[in-house]
């Protein structure tokens, strides 16, 4: 049990665990925030009370989700200083500044306007309330942008060089807009939208299945379905672009994700390992099922494109293989299933099954959506596992090694204690979150709720 006495490994485990837990919450708030903006816009435009009640119901979910997102997110910022001190000291002048921007521009904005959005109906007029909702959604997305700026810089550190133990920025904009950023942000943003749409669709579907408030939930189900019809295939497309980009930017990562050992000879295609079990000691796979030419096609979009194998990289620069290999396949598999569920939804919709009269007949479809909501979360976490484990053995790719960035004064006992603390705290948090989420869902929307007087148009109020 060597790994239990290695503070570095414990710190990595702790960061992985806390991030994986945390990421699931903002993922939903980002997409749900956009949905709330749409709902309020529709409410203001049509003055149809159905939209107001939609807003109230989904904003309740937003609030419970946001609460856990915040409390689980604060530890991340602090771990950089506490567990990754030398890394923070080296790159903080840029990296820390970006996190500072996130706090100042985005997080503060969200915190301030969230309570106006949730509790301010009586206190502000319709325009101001709508503005608050837009600010909440905008801030959530802006947060994602700055966090991805920081993370993409770790993947493709650019715009500066190391000198005298610190990262010196030469070209500020090049550091902010590192090569990995545009596609990584797009990919993650679409992931947030997908998760949210599948959660909205799943919650609506389960309620339709139980026959509760069919008119209300058919409306939200259709909204989620229309939006997901656009987002899901788009995500598959962006994911593919992202794969090619990573092939150019981080070839060792792609080699590890695919357990690809030998660079293909010119004129020959690299095979894609559908399933494999790597044997790093002997630099080969002890078992593999592969499709010829497929890897070259995937990464270079040419059947004989060159894809560097793991053997091209020094042993000490190779990432772990098993974890990224399988996490990547899980992510892609779920993505494929999502596209299939969308095709199914479209098919049944066109056959006229998504009407109030027949809403209760679509049980298998609703169950598929519920499954895909869980799958969407799984895909996000697996995507991040692929991205971050594939970044190893570097903290900042090619610039700072993971072991060099770890706080040397920490003992395994200290990190172990905090790790156990996080496991206990996050388990309790999850239990409380699920309990309250369940309560909220069982209670359902309040179908008699009326907006406060100032928010009603004259004719309805009179």
């Amino acid at each position, binding site marked *: 049990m060597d790994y239990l006495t290695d503070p570095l490994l414990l710190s990595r485990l702790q960061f992985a665990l806390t991030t994986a837990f945390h990421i699931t919450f903002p993922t939903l708030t980002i997409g749900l925030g956009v949905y709330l903006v749409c709902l309020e816009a529709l409410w203001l435009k049509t003055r149809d009370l159905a939209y107001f009640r939609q807003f109230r119901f989904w904003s309740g979910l937003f609030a419970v989700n946001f609460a856990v997102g915040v409390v689980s997110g*604060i530890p991340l*910022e602090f771990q950089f200083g506490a567990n990754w001190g030398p890394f923070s000291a080296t790159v903080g002048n840029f*990296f820390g500044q970006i996190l*500072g921007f996130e706090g100042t521009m985005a997080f503060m904005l969200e915190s301030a*306007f969230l309570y106006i959005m949730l509790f301010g109906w009586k206190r502000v007029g319709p325009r101001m309330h709508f503005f608050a909702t837009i600010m909440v959604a905008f801030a959530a997305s802006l947060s994602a942008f700055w966090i991805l700026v920081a993370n993409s810089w770790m993947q493709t550190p650019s715009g500066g060089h190391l000198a005298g133990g610190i990262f010196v920025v030469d070209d500020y904009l090049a550091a902010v807009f590192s090569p990995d950023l545009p596609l990584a942000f797009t990919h993650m943003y679409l992931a947030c939208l997908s998760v949210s749409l599948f959660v909205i669709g799943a919650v609506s579907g389960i309620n339709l299945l139980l026959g509760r408030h069919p008119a209300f939930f058919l409306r939200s189900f259709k909204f989620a379905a229309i939006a997901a019809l656009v987002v899901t295939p788009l995500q598959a497309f962006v994911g593919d672009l992202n794969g090619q980009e990573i092939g150019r930017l981080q070839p060792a990562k792609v080699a590890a994700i695919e357990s690809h050992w030998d660079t293909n000879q010119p004129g020959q295609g690299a095979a894609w390992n559908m399933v494999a079990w790597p044997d790093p000691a002997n630099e080969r796979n002890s078992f593999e099922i592969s499709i010829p030419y497929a890897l070259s096609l995937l990464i270079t979009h040419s059947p004989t494109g060159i894809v560097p194998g793991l053997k091209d990289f020094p042993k000490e620069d190779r990432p772990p293989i098993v974890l990224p290999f399988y996490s990547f396949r899980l992510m892609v598999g779920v993505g494929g299933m999502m596209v299939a569920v969308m095709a199914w939804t479209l098919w049944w919709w066109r056959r006229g099954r998504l009407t109030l009269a027949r809403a209760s007949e679509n049980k298998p479809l609703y169950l598929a959506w519920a499954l895909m909501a869980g799958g969407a979360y799984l895909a996000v976490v697996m995507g991040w596992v692929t991205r971050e484990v594939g970044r190893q053995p570097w903290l900042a790719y090619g610039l700072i090694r993971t072991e060099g960035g770890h706080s040397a*004064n920490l003992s395994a006992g200290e990190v172990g204690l905090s790790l156990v603390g996080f496991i206990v705290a996050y388990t309790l948090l999850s239990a*409380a979150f699920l309990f309250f989420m369940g309560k909220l869902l069982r209670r359902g929307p309040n179908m008699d709720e009326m907006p406060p007087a100032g928010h009603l148009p004259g004719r309805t109020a009179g």
Partner: protein
Amino acid sequence: MTLADVWYWILAFLLWLYVFTDGFDLGVGILCLLEKSEARHNVMVESIEGVWHANQTWLVMLGGVLFGAFPLVYGTVLAALYLPAGFLLFALMARGIGIEYRAEVADKWFWTKVFGWGSVAVTVAHGILLGGILQGMAFDGLRYVGGSFDWFSPFTILLTATLLCLYPMFAAAWLVFKTEGGLQDTARIWGLRFGSGAVGCLVLLVGYILLDGHLGHLVGRPGRAGLSPGFILLLVVAVLNAALYFRALGKGWERRPLMYSAVMLLFVFLAFGTSLFPMIVPPGVTAESAASPAPMLRIMLYVIGGFLPVVLFYNAYQYRVFRGKAVPEDEV
């Protein structure tokens, strides 16, 4: 004044803002433990419902600014104070979840306790972290050479006790401002008691610094006995504001106790802040030596310095939206 100095004072300003604003809502949590009536708990929590979250966010901003402007401090101090920093995080979770989920249940007893004890724990963590830094840390250059429990000292215990009185003192002033009737009367009594406790602890703290002899850097006399005239002057102004606080409570004024307690804290901060300056981590690390390169500090000053007034403006707007006396069950 160099850019590093500017950031030292921005950091001090953010710390003051955080300690005061989150201080009063943490204090509300602590006072909930002293109050039995659930109806009163509801009003007390309602009074901070719309703002506590934004108050806490100053800590996130503080972390970000420290990380960006003084990365060498961020990367060493948090690692050196690993256990108390971790404790702060768990305490913040308990407090946050306590207050959020309290609103969702019918039987509020349990979550009120989580909120209350979470608030106590956050306050204790503040005391240990601040004390651990202020009393001086064993650095060899920028490498921490002390132990994991160096923060444990009579000084940190005294500082923690001070905060445990100070936060409820702010909270009492806040409740006088935000509530009425019997609860407001009780809040005045809390204000008198915890205010006296806070002033008493502060005097003990300065007394201890004088006796100890190693803490001269906190009072403008590094390595020497006594207090610097500047420190004495600022501390006297702080105590004067405490006196005004008591007078305002006695007169039944509603806004001024809160105002005076904020100004009192400001002068306490100025007294210690000017004494420490330009040290950022005593005894040896100056702001200049731990700061980011000047061009980066300049960019950060343009961006965060430009945004800070906007942030303060919409925070003020938020307080305006949630102005007036707190009443329970103020839904929609």
